[in-house]
């Protein structure tokens, strides 16, 4: 059993379509700790000790957020700056996160095709997430390929429902150790690895374990 901590950052959940649905799934899933950062720290006054204690208690750290300006919402950045202290998370004395795993689950307005070299956004999402990937590396964490819900703007309610299904399967599989993290490493995204169709309207296959 893998203990999962979801660090969730969405500044306007009341306006959200995609994450609102995912959050409902996460909140009632056993074995998953759901940490709603904007709800806990509305004034950005992060309780560093509490956050560090939470990290220490879990094996898989999930950063879940909408893609804002090719990056995370502001509070998640603040969280990184303050919680990942030198001497605790990294540095010659900082080993608290060593051996843990990091997974990003995000939603993006742009479609998968738009995130290609030569296409509209010119880089892949994996490339945009390089700072976090490197942060994980610096802290000694294994970085899993991200799970991406593309085309959030065009998703119908059905699409969102399907996304929530994939989300649930992925979390459950990781929690129950039904997925081999080492085998995932070769893939660009978790979508590719699990054959989750990222696009809207195409038929999607169920996640296979």
């Amino acid at each position, binding site marked *: 059993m893998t203990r999962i901590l979801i660090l969730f950052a969405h500044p306007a959940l009341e306006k959200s379509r995609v994450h609102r649905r995912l959050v409902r799934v996460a909140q009632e899933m056993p074995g998953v700790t759901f940490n709603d950062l904007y709800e806990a720290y509305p004034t950005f006054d992060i309780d*560093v000790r509490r956050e560090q204690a939470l990290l220490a208690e879990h094996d898989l750290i999930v950063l879940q957020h909408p893609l804002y300006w090719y990056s995370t919402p502001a509070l998640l950045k603040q969280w990184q700056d*303050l*919680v990942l*202290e*030198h*001497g605790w998370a990294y540095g*010659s004395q900082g080993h608290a996160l060593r051996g843990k795993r990091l997974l990003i689950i995000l939603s993006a307005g742009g479609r998968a095709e738009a995130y290609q070299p030569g296409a509209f956004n010119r880089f892949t999402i994996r490339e945009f997430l390089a700072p976090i990937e490197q942060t994980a590396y610096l802290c000694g964490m294994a970085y899993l390929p991200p799970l991406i819900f593309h085309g959030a703007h065009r998703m119908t309610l059905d699409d969102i429902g399907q996304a929530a299904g994939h989300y649930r399967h992925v979390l459950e599989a990781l929690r129950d150790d039904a997925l081999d993290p080492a085998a995932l490493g070769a893939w660009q995204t978790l979508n590719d690895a699990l054959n989750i169709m990222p696009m809207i309207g195409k038929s999607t296959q169920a996640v296979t374990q």
Partner: protein
Amino acid sequence: MSGDFLFQAFVYLTAAVIAVPIAARLGLGSVLGYLIAGVVIGPFGLGLLGEGGEDIMHFAEFGVVMMLFLVGLELEPALLWRLRGPILGLGGLQVVVTTAVAATVAYLLGLPWQQALAVGMILALSSTAIVLQSLAERGQLKSAGGQASFAVLLFQDIAVIPMLAIFPLLAGTVATAPGDAHGADAHAATTLVSGLPPWAQTLAVLAAVAAIILGGRFLLRPVFRAIAATRLRELFVATALLLVIGIALLMNQVGLSAALGTFLAGVVLANSEYRHELESDIEPFKGLLLGLFFLAVGASINFALILAQPLLILGLVIGVVVLKFTILLALAKVFRLGTDQALLLAFALPQVGEFAFVLFAFGVQEQVFDGSVADPLVAVVAISMALTPLLMIFFERVIRPRVGTKETAAQEPDAIDERNPVIIAGFGGFGSTVGRLLRANGVGVTVLDNDADRVDALRRFGLQVYYGDASRYDLLIAAGAQEAKLLVLALDTPERTLDLVHTAHKHFPHLQILARAFDWQDAHDLLDAGVPYVYRETLDTSLRLGTDALRLLGFRAYQAQRAAQTFLRYDEESVRTLTGQRGDRTVYLLAARQRIADLEHILQADLTGIDLARDDGWDAEPLRADFARVVEKTD
């Protein structure tokens, strides 16, 4: 005050105190308890009442008068408007159809049509007193059936006005002098208008109604405002009673029902800011007198008359109840109530109401009919009233479990009165800011304040502000504390705040309390009392000032702001820690000493406690040092 009066009061109160708890314990409801107690002490039971017994009914009818005043107070025009469909449709049809059928039956039984019509009208009415009390005790007032009952009763209460106006026009079929009216509404006395021709009497009735509406609108509010400004509670109670009694007297003088007059006054005042206060002032009197009224109904059941013609009376009772029941049930189905709710309505309203006593007496006095018609029917009315609680129990225990659709009052979203989720007690600078923030975000607030001038000023800005002492249980009930979610305490003294906390904890444990505190002392007391959300009123403001002071001294804005955040959190923690430690020290320290002791304690802790280095993550110094070591090593 004669010893006889004291003895009477003693008998009534004893009967009530013994019978009502027993009845309630047996699940029979208080109304039946009172009625049985009345029978027991009445002339056909222990005969404890002596000669004074007859007057009691008269006196106790004042309970009905007050109840209608309170019913009126509950009826804001907006609520009336929302219920207009059921009131006019269901209520109107119930009165018209029942009157028509009952009058036809009476006509066929041999009464002249005028008398038959009068009797039909009287029998169409049901007992607001018994029904509302019984439904409220069963928590059924807000169910669909309860609301329908309320609507029908309301239409009936209003319909009494035209009935009273029509009665004089129906006179002329009896020549005899008026018999002894049974427990009348003081109509026996000659009134100012009794000498006038019927059309003039009708006109007088209309004029009196107009007078109450206009007076209530333009006269009562300034008067209450002036009284409230004196801040003497008993004066307010006295004024409220004076209002009710005054209207009753006025109405009697023009030959109109006192209950209707006060009902109208209630409706007129329903929108006033003094509504809650009036409600809670009149409520205890109403409760007591209504109990007395039920007692008197029990005591007045004329067993001699019943025993003389048992079959006739019994037949009439069954006939009336079955007739009303059937019509109610049919109409409820027409208006698409669910089966169990339709049955609730039909089982609640098949009796004849207290207005029947008034109207029979009025009819005899106006010579619409004579005692030979009225007396047996008065007995029928009393018995039908006594049967109601039994019918309700029968419905609850036997019928309801067998009908498929069960609708509990709790699930019913269509409450009679829309309640706000937040009650704010105290609307000075503090409370009003809270209220404005909530309102700006679409959250409805009910405001209680006991400063008459302020209430007045706020009302002019269209705010829902009520006048009243918020630490009183009954006022909280009136303000909807049972339905609200949050109670915001922004009162102006710690004592009243604590009072209110205790009341709220005791009676409304579901309410989340957010309290303003003045200083540590006060915050400790509130925390001790079990209020988790405590806000010292000067804390955030002084920290903002302190932040600006730091900035003026050259601190960067963000650093100053973070420092204040850190301090705020630390300070909240230490208040809570200190509350735990204070314990028995408070017992022997005077409040003023306690304040200083706390201050010393906190200052002491400040020197060691605050974790000012909380933002270590932003500190690159250790990073540089570490880097330097690594560089040294590799060099």
